[in-house]
């Protein structure tokens, strides 16, 4: 990865191969943003990771907030107080932030407020592949959709100007093929924050209470009318005129597949590429429709533009044939270049290139696994062993969510952040077996607390295991209130989970390390047998975090070893632990040992395999 300091120190006109997310931060620095907030989530995480890393040198404020709602509230407050503020989140994070996001356009700050949302078509790292463009229209705010890292950087600069010129928050919609794409970015000049617009108390200006909302709504509609001039300007809508009778309308990453489509050069259609997509550049679109026989709308996921463009054609009495989702542009799954090449070939009437079939890859699957030394391995083993076949286990978002996949298969229900506790309450109503909810520290702090209070208050009969590994591991080891570290990894006042759980009204609380297998088993059994809300905190630091800390202190892990004469290759360790440090006896790849072995380079010395070995054949190195 490019050293984060280059994103700050890179000179004007220097060209760097930046990730879209890194380019967003540079864009913020080139337009005087001083506040960055976020809750980590793929594919948006790197925005705040970079901002936090360079915050001191850049003189900016960057925080991981406890959730996206708090992140947008903090950014909004900062912008109301006169600072340019950016909040970034993944698509489903915007659902969490949506209460504020919907109200802000009525009562918007005077300083720039930019909401960067990164979608995940194909849901590579998400629960859904929600199309966040819908939020731009739902809240009715200016929305920009860049197609590559360079445009992402430039969009941030322009969005700050738009936000302040009309006094509205601006939504910059990225997707994974912008956020997680590297492309050459020519840097602009860094800019100091503009003079602070001090907060002025104006009755009703920021009060979302009758009688103000209706007037504010009218003002919003009027502001968005004014934005039409901006979206129609050549800077925000580009026409590629090849003199064709056929045209394509597109934006964002979909536009990159249109521009590279595998269609013979003389037959390529004209292209209208939009950068500002709310309001749509209506004048440009109407003119484009009027001058073409057939127009194809290429967009990923929902037919958001297609329906609006058809409406525009109807309103303007245009008979142009408008194609889109009906001709091979899928509504589900990530758009791929072949889909676009096929649809464009059909549009211009050339034989369609043979569509590459999608044969299933051969060989055994390679799902992601818990790292060597990961405490979730022990926790999953405990839950699997004790929950029993018929008990419902509702798990949550985080590394431990991977435990619901093979080979562990722990967790029957998994929906969204914090769902586990509320849903377990629902399962508990009229159920014979006490349901078990499983949640990580970061997710509990993000969305689990109200649900736990609800469970106590409404006397739900449920068990909750909080897997406390001190860190938000899944998205790249970001600190959270359980870490006791702030966004710059400096010590801060954290939160005590046990005090928090007790304050929610929980009487039955147990705190254990999952590595203490025997005691944990006993206490989980007790917990599952008692009535009411029972909580267990299984606490052990994330293995990646622990090994970083060990390395920083100049120490090394003590790997475990197999005592060959005790090992009878029962494979209990392999089946129950599935640890990448355990190498099976012969037969996996050529040249393997006759007994199970432990790779000393990967073993972190957690000792879990030794705990579960029935023959005491695994010992700490040197013992």
């Amino acid at each position, binding site marked *: 990865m490019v050293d984060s300091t280059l994103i700050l120190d890179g000179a004007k006109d220097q060209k760097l191969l930046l990730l879209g997310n890194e380019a967003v931060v540079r864009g913020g620095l080139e337009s005087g943003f001083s506040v960055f907030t976020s809750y980590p989530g793929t594919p948006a995480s790197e925005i705040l990771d970079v901002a936090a890393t360079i915050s001191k040198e850049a003189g900016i404020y960057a925080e991981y907030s406890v959730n996206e709602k708090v992140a947008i509230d903090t950014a909004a407050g900062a912008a109301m107080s006169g600072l340019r503020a950016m909040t970034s989140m993944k698509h489903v994070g915007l659902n969490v932030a949506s209460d504020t996001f919907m109200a802000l356009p009525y009562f918007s700050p005077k300083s720039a407020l930019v909401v960067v949302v990164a979608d995940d078509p194909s849901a590579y790292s998400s629960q859904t592949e929600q199309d966040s463009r819908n939020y731009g229209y739902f809240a009715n705010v200016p929305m920009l959709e860049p197609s590559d890292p360079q445009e992402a950087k430039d969009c941030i600069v322009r969005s700050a100007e738009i936000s302040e010129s009309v006094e509205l928050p601006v939504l910059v919609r990225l997707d994974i093929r912008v956020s997680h794409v590297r492309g050459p970015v020519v840097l602009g000049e860094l800019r100091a924050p503009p003079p602070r617009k001090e907060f002025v108390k104006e009755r009703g200006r920021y009060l979302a209470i009758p009688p103000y909302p209706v007037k504010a709504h009218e003002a919003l509609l009027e502001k968005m009318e004014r934005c039409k001039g901006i979206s129609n300007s050549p800077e925000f809508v580009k026409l590629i005129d090849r003199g064709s009778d056929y045209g394509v309308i597109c934006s964002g990453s979909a536009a990159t597949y249109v521009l*590279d489509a595998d269609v013979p050069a003389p037959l390529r259609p004209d292209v209208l590429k939009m950068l500002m997509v709310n309001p749509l550049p209506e004048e440009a679109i109407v003119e484009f429709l009027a001058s073409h026989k057939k127009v194809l709308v290429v967009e990923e996921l929902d037919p958001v533009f297609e329906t609006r463009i058809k409406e525009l054609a109807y309103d303007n009495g245009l008979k142009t044939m408008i194609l889109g989702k009906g001709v091979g542009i899928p509504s589900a799954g990530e758009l791929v270049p072949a889909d676009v090449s096929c649809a464009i070939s059909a549009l211009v009437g050339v034989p369609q290139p043979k569509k590459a079939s999608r044969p299933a890859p051969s060989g055994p699957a390679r*799902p992601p696994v818990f790292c060597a030394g990961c405490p979730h391995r022990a926790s999953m083993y405990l839950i699997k062993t004790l929950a029993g076949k018929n008990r419902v286990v509702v798990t949550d978002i985080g590394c431990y969510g991977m435990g619901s996949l093979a080979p562990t298969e722990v967790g029957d229900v998994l929906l969204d952040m914090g769902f586990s506790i509320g849903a377990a309450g629902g399962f508990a109503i009229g159920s014979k077996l006490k349901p078990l909810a499983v949640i990580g520290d970061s997710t509990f702090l993000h969305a689990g607390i109200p649900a736990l209070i609800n469970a106590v208050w409404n006397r739900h009969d449920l068990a909750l295991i909080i897997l406390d590994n001190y860190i938000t591991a899944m998205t790249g080891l970001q600190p959270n209130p359980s870490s006791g570290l702030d966004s710059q990894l400096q010590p801060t006042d954290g939160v005590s989970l046990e005090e928090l759980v007790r304050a929610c009204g929980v009487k039955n609380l147990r705190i254990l390390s999952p590595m203490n297998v025997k005691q944990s088993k006993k206490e989980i059994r007790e917990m599952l047998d008692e009535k009411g809300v029972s909580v267990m905190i299984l606490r052990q630091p994330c293995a990646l975090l622990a090994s970083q800390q060990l390395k920083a202190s100049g120490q090394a892990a003590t790997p475990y070893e197999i005592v060959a004469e005790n090992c009878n290759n029962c494979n209990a360790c392999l089946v129950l632990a599935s640890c990448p440090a355990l190498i099976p006896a012969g037969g996996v790849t050529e040249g393997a040992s006759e007994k199970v072995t432990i790779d000393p380079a990967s073993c972190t010395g957690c000792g879990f395999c030794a705990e579960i070995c029935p023959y005491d054949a695994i010992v700490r190195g040197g013992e």
Partner: protein
Amino acid sequence: MKLEKPLSVVVSGVGGQGVLLTSEILGNAAMLSGLDVRVTETHGLSQRGGSLVSCVRFGKEVHSPLVDYRGADYIISMELLEAAKCSIYAGEETVHIVSTLQIPPVTVLSGKAKYPPSKELMSSVADSCKKAYFVDAAGMATKAGRSLYQNAVLLGFFAGVTDGLIGREDYAKALQILVPAKYVAPNLKAFDMGLQAFLGESPGQRL
């Protein structure tokens, strides 16, 4: 160098092997040689030992970061089973450079599946493309200092196969940008070993 039609390179391997770093080195080297570039990972959780595939496209002008199935000009695979899986990106004109390193997936470790015999995997890779090179990249990398340097070996081999399309000095500069200073020299050594391995195999070609 023109490259009016962009070249599509797919890099595959296991999370933790340096698939993303390899793609980034290649991307930076291409950019430094004056080309337009896009790099993206297509799926996987980079730190969690899952399958990982990354796309690098470069040429005079590039927009799309994604490579279609059967659409790769070159594939660089850092693990044998992943090479076989990644053959979905191979077509009739594809050249596939494969490290013969084998890393058993968790499904094999837990006894739920068998790692296919290497001969089977190699013939399935060879059948799917125009030309496959099987390289003991991890062995060479170990000689250069660490088996992890195998990505540099494979890049050196790729530089040989592509016959100086991107100059060695651009790969070296890219390494300097992306790799901590003390690791640049051993990486370059590994790169040169890969390059020499190719030249040894095809004595007629020069960089």
